[in-house]
């Protein structure tokens, strides 16, 4: 360990090593520090502080630890968190080396604490710390919790963690355990591999309960005692389909345990039986093969090679993977022999490569010329892996006979895995021997190795085979030196193919660019230029222009004034592509000359491009563009410069653009450019781009709106908006339309009245048809919701009650549309030139105002914005920020005799004209409806109630009392469902009477579990003397016992007040609060008692055995909001 420590201490941080600083004495504790002060230091910030804090706490003795435990159990409080930190830290601390005494003190205190703490949460926490720090001394204590439904799991886990001595208590707890507890104990005995548990587990494996049976199979398998074999073998055979994979895996686990414990013959028997089973799945047979290899060792080679004839490819591949388990030359020989027979040869060759046994090399090499390409490529790979560099000659020899792309790729892959300095010499020798496609590959390979010699490659650059020649020309770009430039120029000038010339040019540029002095880069080219023919000069000029430099520029500028038009053309093209700004002036001169138009335009474009690519500040770039702009006279040219200016987001560019806005033909381009400049990134003083952009988006938008002439405004504003911020809801609103697709929308099915009458079976297909209709005619493009003028309204997926919404809309000439609120027409949209009163009115109103207060429309073709607020029956509409409807009642179009529906979907109306919508946002306004308050029972009949699952006649009303005879079974349910409420009722029981009040129940299953039951019972009857506390009157049945007995004797009237408020249930019986429960902390019972998480349901009365009477059943609905503390 010393080496290791010195290694670790190299680390530059401030790490403390426990074994270096082994002073773990409690003497570290500082006198005068209180426990509270120590707890306030939780969590300690590093190991030094932790050691000090924890040793101090232990130094204070067990009392201190008890005190910490007592702080547990108030989740979410500082006290609780500090205690949890402290106990966890202590548990880890005391398990450190050399802390045996401290551990004993700590564990002793935890055990005491378990006697003192009250809640199961506290106990569970402490048991968890024993799982870290406990040892044999805690076993008997942990055993006490094994049959506690809520604590058996943590107790069993602690026992399994401790291991030593844990099996006996688990074994003794097994007979009395039930349900989940039993499964926990069985599984834990399996984890512990307890042989003593064998007999009992064999008994459990015959249980009727499949969960217990499966747990027992696992345990028996993991224990791996031979006596369990028959049971597991049978289970694997007869398991129902659902359990088959699991039980079979247990059987295989059992067999592996057999192999581990030396019973290889037993394991082998199982493996062979499963492998031979034709009904077994392929993966099971693969696992069986694995088992055979485990138990047979090297002699399993026959099984593996034999498996290569198996019809299942999964089994064959499993055999090949298992091959590595049997090493050695003789096994290699068997595999090589396998290659003789057909099937999976390629995979066998790959495997031989993986094995790394060079004994296979001759066989692998012999397959390099196989007829099967897959085998050949595997052989290339395997040869490389077996012999590395030594395989090079045979790999290269493959290239001498093969033109097959697969072989060439395989050899290429192999070459790349070897050091290039070792590969290059033999490859260069091979170049002249290999087939043409292989030669191309090798030339490319050589070209990637910067150190390779260029000389041998030159001869291939003259090859008559074009791909070979081009590959050589390409390689010379990396391999050639300054001295090779002349030869490469000659090759370029001699090259006939266009592709070849392009490659040669690139290679020349690459080669020359490596010359350090920029002015010398064009030296060879300029020399060649002087003696070249005019056509050759054009070719050379192209290369020269890409290299740039003073002398090159002088040459190009001169040639641009040449008398030869072809030369001039080539020179201007070269200048237009110049790599540096120094050609700018020359280009402007050409642009302003009397040269041919196409060349002047070329020069102007070149000038603009140079500036765009130059690394200069935006303001200087504007100055250059201004010079170009001054020369531009045709609209196309001006447009080009305006486009360049649009990308420079500064005031200078804006100033240049603005004058063109009033121009007839350029106005739109200028306006678009202005919009683009103004929509630049927001001004951020801190950012490096402080000079870019003109301000915040609203300011910029206002600016362009005011500046741009009306005829361009809408396009410019659209351009601006497309740059961001579209369909993003303002604070407090959510987007109904996401700008990308139709999520959140559905097609229209009938009107609300007809729809309400449709059954789900009819509605679903109708909705599906409507949705496909919607998708046919409504679409999304560029963040805009488009309607093609055919089809039906589009509707929000859900209903809304009171809300405020926003929507931008745009229509064409004579266009007509509207916004339906709660499924009803409508806030009007139409062409104001046709209907001069304008949009926004509640068009279908007959009694109330239907016209807007004034016309606030923008002209057709421009975007308009609605803000619509609907609360209750009243609607207010703002159009383009002008109020046009002031709190007017919207009438019910579908049924004029009733008010507007209380809620419904929002629809965008189709009206045979194309429409655009965007920025559709909604904010729901919480409704102020008064909750139900009053009597659930009218004293005369069963109005408002319905009998569920029992005999109808057993419920009745008699003299103002609601009663059950108790003979009909079932229960009586309210017609409505309730979520949060205060329920008051009186009840009277006969002797031994039994009933219950169901809360939030569905009408399926046993409402005591699918919902929950407040027990109504004659507690005093002798027959109920031995009930659990959580079964007595006033309990939430099976969940929470009453805190005291407040029930009265039979025949007396008793009063319940039951408050259900979210997860909080309180029960007051006869004036005494006996239950105040938080269901959220009872959710571990949720799997057996799913009703605990229901939020609403029916209220019910149970008919159980004898007559029970009820009266004065009143209910008041309450408001409950889940708090927002869920971040």
């Amino acid at each position: 360990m010393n080496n290791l420590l010195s290694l670790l201490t190299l680390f530059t941080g401030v790490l403390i090593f426990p074994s270096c600083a082994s002073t773990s004495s409690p003497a570290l504790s500082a006198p005068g520090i209180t426990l509270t002060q120590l707890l306030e230091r939780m969590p300690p910030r590093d190991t030094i502080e932790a050691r000090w804090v924890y040793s101090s706490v232990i130094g204070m003795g067990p009392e201190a630890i008890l005190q910490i435990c007592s702080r547990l159990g108030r989740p979410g409080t500082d006290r609780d968190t500090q205690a949890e930190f402290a106990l966890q830290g202590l548990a880890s601390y005391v398990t450190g080396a050399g802390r045996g005494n401290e551990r004993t003190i700590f564990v002793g205190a935890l055990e005491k604490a378990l006697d003192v703490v009250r809640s199961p949460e506290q106990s569970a926490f402490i048991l968890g710390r024993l799982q870290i720090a406990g040892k044999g001394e805690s076993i008997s204590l942990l055993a006490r919790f094994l049959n506690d439904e809520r604590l058996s799991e943590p107790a069993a886990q602690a026992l399994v963690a401790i291991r030593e001595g844990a099996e006996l208590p688990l074994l003794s707890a097994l007979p009395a355990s039930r349900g989940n507890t039993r499964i926990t104990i069985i599984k834990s005995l399996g984890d512990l591999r307890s042989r003593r548990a064998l007999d009992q587990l064999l008994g459990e494996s015959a249980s009727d309960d499949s969960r217990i049976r499966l747990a027992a199979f696992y345990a028996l398998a993991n224990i791996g005692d031979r006596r369990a074999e028959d049971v597991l073998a049978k289970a694997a055979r007869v398991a129902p389909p659902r359990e088959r994979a699991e039980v079979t895996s247990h059987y295989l686990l059992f067999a592996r345990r057999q192999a581990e414990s030396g019973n290889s013959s037993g394991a082998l028997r199982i493996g062979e039986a499963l492998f031979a089973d034709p009904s077994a799945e392929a993966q099971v047979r693969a696992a069986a093969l694995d088992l055979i290899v485990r138990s047979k060792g090297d002699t399993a080679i026959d099984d593996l090679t034999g498996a290569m004839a198996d019809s299942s490819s999964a089994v064959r591949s499993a055999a090949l993977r298992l091959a590595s388990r049997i090493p050695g030359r003789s096994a290699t020989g068997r595999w090589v022999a396998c290659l003789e027979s057909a099937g999976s040869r390629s995979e066998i060759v790959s495997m031989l490569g993986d094995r790394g046994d060079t004994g296979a090399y001759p066989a692998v090499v012999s397959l390099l010329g196989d007829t099967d390409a897959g085998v050949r490529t595997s052989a290339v790979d395997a040869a490389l892996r077996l012999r590395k560099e030594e395989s090079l000659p045979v790999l290269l020899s493959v290239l001498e006979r093969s033109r097959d792309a697969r072989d060439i790729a395989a050899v290429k892959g192999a070459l790349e895995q070897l050091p290039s300095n070792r590969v290059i010499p033999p490859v260069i020798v091979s170049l002249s021997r290999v087939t043409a496609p292989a030669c191309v590959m090798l030339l490319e390979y050589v070209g990637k190795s910067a150190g390779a010699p260029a000389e041998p490659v030159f001869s291939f650059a003259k090859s008559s085979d074009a791909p070979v020649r081009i590959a050589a020309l390409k390689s010379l770009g990396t391999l050639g030196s300054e001295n090779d430039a002349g030869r490469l120029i000659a090759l370029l000038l001699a090259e006939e193919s266009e592709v070849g010339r392009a490659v040669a040019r690139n290679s020349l540029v690459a080669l020359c660019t490596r010359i350090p002095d920029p002015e010398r880069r064009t030296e060879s080219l300029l020399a060649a230029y002087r003696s070249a023919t005019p056509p050759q000069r054009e070719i050379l000029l192209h290369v020269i222009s890409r290299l740039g430099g003073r002398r090159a520029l002088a040459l190009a500028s001169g040639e641009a004034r040449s008398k030869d038009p072809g030369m001039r053309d080539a020179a201007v093209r070269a200048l237009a592509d110049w790599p540096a700004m120094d050609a700018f002036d020359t280009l402007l001169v050409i642009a302003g000359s009397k040269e041919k138009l196409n060349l002047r335009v070329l020069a102007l474009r070149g000038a603009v491009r140079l500036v765009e690519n130059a690394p200069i500040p935006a303001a200087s770039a504007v100055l250059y563009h201004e010079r170009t702009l001054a020369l531009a006279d045709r609209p196309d040219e001006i447009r080009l410069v305006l486009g360049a200016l649009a990308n420079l987001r500064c005031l200078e560019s804006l100033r240049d653009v603005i004058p063109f806005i009033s121009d007839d033909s350029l106005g739109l381009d200028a306006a678009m450019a202005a919009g683009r400049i103004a929509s630049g990134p927001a001004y951020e003083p801190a950012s490096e781009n402080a000079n870019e952009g003109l301000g915040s988006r609203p300011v910029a938008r206002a600016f362009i709106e005011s500046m741009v002439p009306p005829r361009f405004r809408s396009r410019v504003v659209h351009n601006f908006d497309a740059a961001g911020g579209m369909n993003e809801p303002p604070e407090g609103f959510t987007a109904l339309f996401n700008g990308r697709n139709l999520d959140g929308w559905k097609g229209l099915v009938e009107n609300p009245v007809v729809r309400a009458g449709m059954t789900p079976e009819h509605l679903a297909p109708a909705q599906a048809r409507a949705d496909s209709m919607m998708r046919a005619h409504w679409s999304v493009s560029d963040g805009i919701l488009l309607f093609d003028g055919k089809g039906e309204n589009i509707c929000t997926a859900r209903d809304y009650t009171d809300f405020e919404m926003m929507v931008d809309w745009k229509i064409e000439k004579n266009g007509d549309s509207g916004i339906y609120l709660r499924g009803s027409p409508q806030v009007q949209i139409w062409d104001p030139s046709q209907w001069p009163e304008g949009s926004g009115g509640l068009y279908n109103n007959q009694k109330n105002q239907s016209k807007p207060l004034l016309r606030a429309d923008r002209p057709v073709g421009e975007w308009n914005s609605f803000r619509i607020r609907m609360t209750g029956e009243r609607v207010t509409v703002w159009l383009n920020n002008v109020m046009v409807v002031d709190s007017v009642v919207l009438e019910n179009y579908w049924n004029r005799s009733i008010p507007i529906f209380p809620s419904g979907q929002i629809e965008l109306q189709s009206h045979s004209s194309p429409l655009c919508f965007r920025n559709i946002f909604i904010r729901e306004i919480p409704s102020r409806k008064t909750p139900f308050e009053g009597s659930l029972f009218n004293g005369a009949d069963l109005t408002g109630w319905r009998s569920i699952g029992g005999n109808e006649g057993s419920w009745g009303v008699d003299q103002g009392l609601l009663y059950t005879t108790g003979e009909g079974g079932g229960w009586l349910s309210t017609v409505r469902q309730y979520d949060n409420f205060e329920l008051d009722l009186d009840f009277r029981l006969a002797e031994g009477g039994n009933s219950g009040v169901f809360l939030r129940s569905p009408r399926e299953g046993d409402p005591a579990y699918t919902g929950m039951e407040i027990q109504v019972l004659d507690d005093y009857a002798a027959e109920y003397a031995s009930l659990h506390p959580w079964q007595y009157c006033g309990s939430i049945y099976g969940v929470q016992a009453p805190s005291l007995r407040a029930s009265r004797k039979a025949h007396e009237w008793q009063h319940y007040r039951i408050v259900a408020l979210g997860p909080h249930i309180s029960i007051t019986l006869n004036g005494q609060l006996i239950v105040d429960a938080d269901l959220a902390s009872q959710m571990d019972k949720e799997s057996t008692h799913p009703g605990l998480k229901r939020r609403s349901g029916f209220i019910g009365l149970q008919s159980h055995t004898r007559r029970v009477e009820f009266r004065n059943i009143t209910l008041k609905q309450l408001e409950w909001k889940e708090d927002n503390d869920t971040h």
Partner: protein
Amino acid sequence: MALTRRTFIKSALALGAFTIVPRRVLGGTGYTPPSDELTKAVIGIGGMGHWHLGNTGARLVAVCDVDEEHLQEGMRVGGVKGYHDFRELLERKDVDVVHIATPPHWHALISIAAAEAGKDIWCEKPMTRTIAEGEHVVDTVRAYARMFRVNTWFRFSGDMFYDSGGTAREYRKLVQSGMLGWPLTVTIGAATGFNWKFYHCGRTDLTPRWIPPQLDYDFWLGPAPYKPYHPHRVHYTFRGYWDYDGGGLGDMGQHYLDPVQYILGKDGESPVAVEADAAAQHPDAIGSFRRILIAYADGCRIILEGEREKDEIPFIEGPDGKLFKDFRSTITNLKEKIAALPEPEPVVTDFMESVRTRRKFALNETNAHRSATLVNLCKISWQLGRAVYFDPGTQRCINDEAANRLIDPPIRAPWHL
């Protein structure tokens, strides 16, 4: 009836429907299936699950989630069947590949069950939550001859290895060439291009809440200890709790460490010591760390740097050279030198190719278990607040029973490894 063009097309289509049967039995390269189409199922349709629903080279036929809302999300693709219980999904014979995008406390159990059911497995990172879980996954996947991949990319994809400036392949070539000398120290932190996501911290102030009706919370917890429900424990924020994951380390650890393990050539071994420098940890809610040191027997070290974001720290440092973020180095012309070095052995980088050819995927159960072990070992030192010493042979800690209890902790019945 005369065979018109239209009826001909119709009958040809009908014929096609009968002849193109999805491939159910996987074959090796020599096997030509009637149709090459592979099918997949996704288990866990939360944050990462959505990614797995997309195109991975196999057709989605089934989804599974214990949250009804998530399940409905997953079933929006046509022809996809939804399951609440993954065991029912695994009974289907027509699923080739199972994607596991649940929180990590489920990865091992579902991987094992999927392997036993004959499925190939595409599992989210971190591969498993404990070292013992990883051992079981490796054993089962091997025994049942399944293909397995962990869903991180940087080991083999051509893209950059996070923000380090190079690819794992380039770093590996450099490291294996010995140019930097030996042993090496690799630092993973913001300064070298890797950001630990410490926003995945747990909360210690959780008061019990009502379980939402659409969530089967007990099933969601599965093997994890029962704790009262709070929304912060589950979707998207579960990483902040030891019961389900490992905070920012759990989220990013395997992403970052797996390629480093490959670069250092440590796919076949494990470290000998790990020490975390951090504030003491809460038993439930995960906090942050300042630094975690991983040391190998040959002197190579990996430092998980949770602070020192702005300092100039080398990503890889050896006796003969340093390599910083953005591939800056003390060695000149490094990129060119690396280009001339031999390529690493090729690996299968398309999981569907693995599934078809039965050749192991680049990041498979074996090397992924090694890199998950790095993460899980770091978590142990971090949780215990002390250095832990590890025996790479037995894969257990030396003289530290509490650490070994964290290597192989019991899980909640009826679940078992």
